[in-house]
């Protein structure tokens, strides 16, 4: 059995950012005293959630609080999250609490990578969000991707029409192409990556830059 490890949200975000994939600003808070400094550094509203390798379903554990808009709110959220986690998951290893800038509503996409036993890294793109499997509006290609492959991936899903301007939409297709090409480069340079899930990745109209909100990366331990 291959042994694996998971990059936490912050590590995954940093790795993806370093490959030119924009990610929502995320800061780790390791003690209550740091909240004040963090509050001055971020743009409200923010979301706070537990950072723990042992808690996969954070919402169920009461470890996610949305729409916080002041230092006072951050302090309360910090205490609530830790209390809930102590009650609901007493065994979990706690690395801190994440403060992440909340993103305005945009078009939710998913970007993913899976390392197939036969084909190696396979890239996935499509409609993101919580119903991603149910909607199953995704396309796939083997890495490495050419620009044409990336374009075909977009055009193959229902999003193709959205990016071509259906109903007056003005999303930037180039931004998606770049994320796909960057992901392809990332896995070419890191064969140890087994899975990547960026869901949702939000894109906006009228030139506003999009960003990934949640990311998971699974790697093979050597």
């Amino acid at each position: 059995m291959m042994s694996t490890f998971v990059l936490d949200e912050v590590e995954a975000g940093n790795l993806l950012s370093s490959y030119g994939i924009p990610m929502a600003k995320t800061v780790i808070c390791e003690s209550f005293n740091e909240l004040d400094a963090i509050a001055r550094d971020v743009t409200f509203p923010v979301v706070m959630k537990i950072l723990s390798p042992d808690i996969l379903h954070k919402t169920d554990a009461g470890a996610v609080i949305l729409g916080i808009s002041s230092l006072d709110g951050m302090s309360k959220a910090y205490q609530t999250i830790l209390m809930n986690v102590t009650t609901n998951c007493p065994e979990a290893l706690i690395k801190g609490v994440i403060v992440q800038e909340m993103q305005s509503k945009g078009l939710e996409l998913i970007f993913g990578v899976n390392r197939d036993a036969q084909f190696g890294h396979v890239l996935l793109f499509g409609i993101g969000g919580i119903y991603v499997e149910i909607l199953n509006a995704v396309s796939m290609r083997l890495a490495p991707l050419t620009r044409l492959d990336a374009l075909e991936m977009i055009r193959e899903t229902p999003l193709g029409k959205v990016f071509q301007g259906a109903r007056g939409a003005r999303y930037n297709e180039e931004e998606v192409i770049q994320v796909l090409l960057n992901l392809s480069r990332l896995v070419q340079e890191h064969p140890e990556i087994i899975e990547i899930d960026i869901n949702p990745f939000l894109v906006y109209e009228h030139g506003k830059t999009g960003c990934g909100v949640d990311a998971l990366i699974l790697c093979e331990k050597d």
Partner: protein
Amino acid sequence: MTEHELNGLFQPKGIAVIGASNNPLKAGCIIINNMIKGKFPGKLYPVNQSEENVAGLNTYARLSDIDDVVELVVLITPASAIYSIMDDLDERMASKNDVRFIVCAAADYAETKTEEGIKRQERLMQAKDKYGIRIIGPNCIGVIDTVSRVNTTFVDTGVSEDRFGPPGGISFISQSGSVAASILAWGASKVIGIRYNKFISVGNMADIDFIDLLEFLEQDPSTKVIGIYMEGYQNGKQLIKVMGRIARKKPIIILKVGRSSKGSVAANSHTSSMSGSDKVYDAAFRQYGILRVEDLWELLDTLQAFDKMRLPDGNRLFVLTQAGGPGIYCSDEISKYDFIETPMVSENTKNQLKETMPRMAAICVPEGYADITASATIRQHCDSLRYVLMDPSVDGVCFITVVTPFLPSAQLGKELSDTYWSLDEKYRKPVYFCIMAGEAVIPCRRELEQTGLVTFDSPTEAVKAAKNMIIYNMKREKETQTGQ
């Protein structure tokens, strides 16, 4: 270019059939008969310990008894005999050293996953290890080359030789022997029977596998299009790369089964739960321009379209029909594929049609569609087809006619094909002829097909073949444009 090693498999000097028989219920009888029926011009040596002659040919008790050169050995004996046959082969190789290929049709080898089955296959494979003999099978129905007239299969299609067309450019590789047999039989039962160029049932692929054969077909000058039936392959990535390279030169049409099998590893992420192995195959086929089809009919129709027609220059498909119902049905089929566009023919073309077609005819209402009505004469069928093909906005035509009692079926077919072939070469665009329906219109379809045109059972089949041609063309064009 040096000759591909597998050329010898299809052009052997001397074939020995071990297990040849006079018993018409035995595969060893059908193989010999197929070879004689197919007029194999080389030497044929039946090997059989109990019969003195098979189908009028002298038999040999052992392989090592044959004096002349034997390059191909076909095994159709029960698998349990493999040990003594291989000893016999050892003897032959020690004295003559001439065998280059074995087609092992018999089953009950490693595919059974039993200790004995695996042992038998290992014994068979020693022929490769010791002498470099290349092996097809075991557990297959063999190979056919209609150019050199080698046919080691034991499939009787039941179709007489005169109902087949000349050897075409379709070569086929099948992983399943039964599907291979069905592809042969269905192909034979077409209006004009398909004579596959090369036909290979690969069975267990103990030695020669998909990649070997694809690379052979890649450089085989008489193979124009490649069909594949596949269940699985251990090195998907390498296979896809080879296929992708070949598909740029020769279309590859694949029927791959196993869509229903779930991904083997428990899913951690959304991505892995949505990327089961068959979906990855599907994506890889698209990426590399390999056409995956849904069923055996689409497979055969698409292979024929690629073999007989030239590629379309674009994606604009005109519907020319003589009856409303089938025309609408055809348009519905086309609407399933959003990359197929409606041609906007010129005013000149519209006027030509209006002036020459029956008064009731609906010309380009809607655009890209003409209904010349059931009162159309043969002349009007032919004229309308000519006008539409000559319009520069048209890349291909779905031509539908329901042969009425007042249209002589064979005459219609003859005049349509005369019209088509009398056109300037640049106007001989792909035409997907749907002559409806059934047995009654076979004379018409035969006339068309005899001259190298392709006919389809219904608009569904016609449109599937058309969309596959369009996809292939679009992929090649995009690759050329982007240099990728």
